[in-house]
């Protein structure tokens, strides 16, 4: 961490360290116990405050941030649900960085997640040499979060087996971890002020239905939706893809008209409605903003490294086949129909170029 230039993606508290420091200095409002910022300060950190030089970091309804922060100030956990690619993890990272100044206490949920990775495990060499002692204990994020009064992030909680999810139950309601191997005061680790949990779950992979009712009750659910309007999404895709392209050493800016075609295509295939309100087929694949950014990135890379320019709708078609259709032949057919029937009707040189390039789709 000493040399940030080598880190591909530093955590939010490092990326926005000076903004956080400035907010902390100027923050005079009342802070909930254990919080690094007040609610108002945390909100400004996320939704932005141009006059104070705080950038907007999350595009979405401001009321969502309000609800999320107030939830964390109560004793319930926060559960962010939504389609993949709606920036749930980014939001949880930002909130954690704002609330406790640290976003790295993270459990990545998956089929192989065990209780050890959630609560604690042992340094077995020390355990054998010295017996159980605080020294041989290896704390996992939940234990650290509780002891230090920090926010713990639990990513993709619904991908964990039910029994592993359920070990969160007592932690969230009793707010204490019992370590039976240790004796005396070390045997019980109580949660300090500021401890709370932000979990994320996506609605595509394995539905949230598989969470037990008892665990659901300990969380407030917040659904994160795809960005509602074209202009905002376009701005975001442009800004993000520009950053990515710069980092990849591409010497030109992405073209706005190509990006507009890209974002419109993504939105229409995602919602199953054209911008003029006609219904059409929607793809089964996830067409998220994050995917749009990665396609924009790929288009830029192709254009620059293959031909030394910014990328054309033909590149877009080639990239779409991989992202949008993946290995699903039905989606590929839908995409082809979209390029044939919808793209041809739109005005603008880029749309026509997209239509012309439709034969580049495989199959």
């Amino acid at each position: 961490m000493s040399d940030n230039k080598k880190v591909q993606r530093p955590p939010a508290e490092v990326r926005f360290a000076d903004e956080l420091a400035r907010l902390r200095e100027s923050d005079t409002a009342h802070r909930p116990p254990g919080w690094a910022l007040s609610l108002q300060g945390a909100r400004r950190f996320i939704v932005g405050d141009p006059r104070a030089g705080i950038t907007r970091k999350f595009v979405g309804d401001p009321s969502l941030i309000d609800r999320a922060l107030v939830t964390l100030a109560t004793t319930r956990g926060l559960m962010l649900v939504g389609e993949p690619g709606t920036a749930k993890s980014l939001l949880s990272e930002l909130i954690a960085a704002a609330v406790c100044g640290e976003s790295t206490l993270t459990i990545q949920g998956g089929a192989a997640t065990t209780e050890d990775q959630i609560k604690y495990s042992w340094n077995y060499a020390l355990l054998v040499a010295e017996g159980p002692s605080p020294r041989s204990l290896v704390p996992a994020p939940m234990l650290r979060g509780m002891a230090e009064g920090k926010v713990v992030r639990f990513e993709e909680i619904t991908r964990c087996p039910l029994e592993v999810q359920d070990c969160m139950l007592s932690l969230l309601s009793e707010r204490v971890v019992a370590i039976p191997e240790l004796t005396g005061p070390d045997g019980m680790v109580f949660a300090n002020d500021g401890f709370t949990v932000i979990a994320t779950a996506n609605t595509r992979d394995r539905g949230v239905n598989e969470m037990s009712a008892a665990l659901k009750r300990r969380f407030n659910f917040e659904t994160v939706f795809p960005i509602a309007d074209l202009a905002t999404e376009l701005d975001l895709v442009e800004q993000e893809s520009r950053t990515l392209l710069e980092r990849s050493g591409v010497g030109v800016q992405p073209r706005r008209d190509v990006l507009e075609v890209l974002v419109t295509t993504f939105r229409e295939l995602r919602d199953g409605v054209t911008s003029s309100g006609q219904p059409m087929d929607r793809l089964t694949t996830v067409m998220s903003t994050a995917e749009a950014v990665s396609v924009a990135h790929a288009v830029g890379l192709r254009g620059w490294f293959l031909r030394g320019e910014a990328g054309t709708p033909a590149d877009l078609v080639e990239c779409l086949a991989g992202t949008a259709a993946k290995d699903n032949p039905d989606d590929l057919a839908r995409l082809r129909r979209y390029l044939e029937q919808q793209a041809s009707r739109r005005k603008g040189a880029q749309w026509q170029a997209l239509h012309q390039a439709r034969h580049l789709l495989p199959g």
Partner: protein
Amino acid sequence: MATTFVGGRHHSPACARLVAETIEALRPAHVLVEGPVDMNDRLDELLLGHEPPIAVYTYYRDEERSHASWTPFCDYSPEWVALAAGRACGARVRFIDLPAWHPAFTGRGNRYADAEARYTEVTGRLCREFAVDNTDVLWDHLFEVEPADGLADRLTAYFDLLRGEATTEHADVEREAYMASWVRAAQADAGDRPVVVVTGGFHTPALRVLAAGAEPGWPEVPRPPQDAVGASYLVPYSFRRLDAFTGYQSGMPSPEYYQHLWEDGVAGAAEALVASVVGRLRGRRQPVSTADLIAARTLAQGLARLRGHADPSRTDVLDGLVGALVSEDLSQPPPWTVRGPLRPGAHPAVVEMVAALSGDRVGALHPDTPAPPLVAAVTAELLALGLDGSGEVDLDLADDLGLRRGRTLHRLRVLGIVGFDRLAGPTGGGDPVFTERWRLTPSDRRLPALIEAAVHGATLEEAAGAALRGRVEDAPVDRLAEVLFDAALCGVTALSDDVVTALTTRVGAVADVAELGRVLVVVVGLWRYDGLFGTAGSPVLGAVISGAVTRVLWLVEGLHGGPAPADHRRLLALSATRDAVRHAESVLATGRGEAVAVLGRVAADPQAPPDLRGAAFGFCWSLGGGADVVRAVRGMSGPRTIGDWLAGLFAVAREEVLSADAVIMLLDELVHALSEEDFLVALPALRQAFAYFPPAERETIAKRVLVARGTGGSARELLRIDVDPVVVAEGMALEAKVDAVLAREGLA
């Protein structure tokens, strides 16, 4: 001379309070209110003592356009409050905006929509600045939940900012110029006494500039053109309708909430909202626990504190409730964050929240309020025909009185007047049902619906006729048959030439044979038989028949495809076309000869699907095309095609098949010659094909087969099998499999 402009948002309790206070404090000579200037002579009518919500409903029709719009008032509308407060302090109260029929209001259904909704750029920026979701939340934040001090200044600053950056539409400019002329006249008339002007805040900055100076003489009230029909009437309104305006028509949402805000203040409204949501959810047996309520209240209080509100605002409460009550993912953003109606499939808690915000309050008019002539005409007609009661009514349509009563009821139904439901009756042309059963349920929604139906005419017959003509022009093709049948039921037979042209053009553009078929079945039935409703031989229906037949012939030749299960709807279309050619040839533009030629080509086209070929063959045969049926059947005798081909043939030419012994014998021979395996392949389609014969005719066929084979026995017995044919078929398939295994192992 001092003029005070109170510019606010329509249906805003905070602005209404400000209006009342301003008028009371200034006691002005004139109160000028944004509203239809042609209602000025009828202000007494508005102040009779109605129970809001009510609305002024205006309809207008001339040669070029027709238009209907509403000017809604609630208890807490600034305009409504201005009328009452102005009268109470002895001021001269006037509406000063253009009439609702004026071209400046074209396309506007709601006079009191938010003008600023059309200028989203500025409001979008303000929302970002205050970090709120949309303008409704911003409005609550800035005006409704804030203490009243300095409200006037805040409003001025807000609307100056909005107006300062927006480029104005022509319609707004026209209205503002007219309103300003009234303000100038009032200023001249008032002399030293104050004038109060109550308008939408979006217009205030412009009015302030335009109204500088005094100009004696009241402006003229615009009159509609001579040939136009139009009028304004008061109608009872409902919160649900007020909340149903969307897009550019929308105003303040959530009327029930603001009614509470007007009556009980911010804290009271929040309490009432929670109580209403919880009551509704529990009424629907959705669990809401005390723990949930505590969580909801904690969240709402926390949100209010975070957002700087002394008491929880509308969205603080809603956000709190949604956080506490919803414990799964939502399928769409909560409607109060995005401005717009709820789509189907929303979470039940959210549905109840939206319903609680809207409320179901319905206004009531004072009994002395004048009503349009249609209302009196309908009341008299219902009375005369004994239909003014409630309960079920049976009608005999063959009887003159029964027919008249039926027509009246159908006309009311077509106009969408609530409480007239038909339970049973004829369902299409040629339906041999001559009785109808209706259920009459009086409702308080009848009067507003009747007043609004007055746009179509002064008597029931005229209104229903106009409404149906409108529907003929707008109906999608699959509903067209229904509309034409409704016209017959209502006794509306004369439709003008342009309607006929519109109809034929519409029919000529349909791309689906099956849809055309549905239209044809109904219309041919009505054209042929309906002496009852007087539609037999009607030239309008004749034109539709002609157009549809031409179109079917055009489409049918382009239908290509390999073997596929028979499409029953498509076959019906061909059968209806055949009926049209056979019985209504006199009205057809495409004659019998052309029709037979087209379908002869289809029957011979190897690219066409088998069911269509069969039907096309039957078409020619039944119209005397002189085809060799035995040869045709032999030509299609493959196990994969024979069943579907026959389905087509039987659908169109059932009678002809019955009278041609050779065909039945040939079919017997073909089926008999099928191998076991082929028979199983052909069986489902064959069964479907023979289903076109009613049981008695199937028995006739069976008899002939028995006779031809020389075996005795009862034909009826042959048709009545104890075992499900599916089981038989499965048994045969199993046997075939066993045989195959035996053969493979050399044991056969």
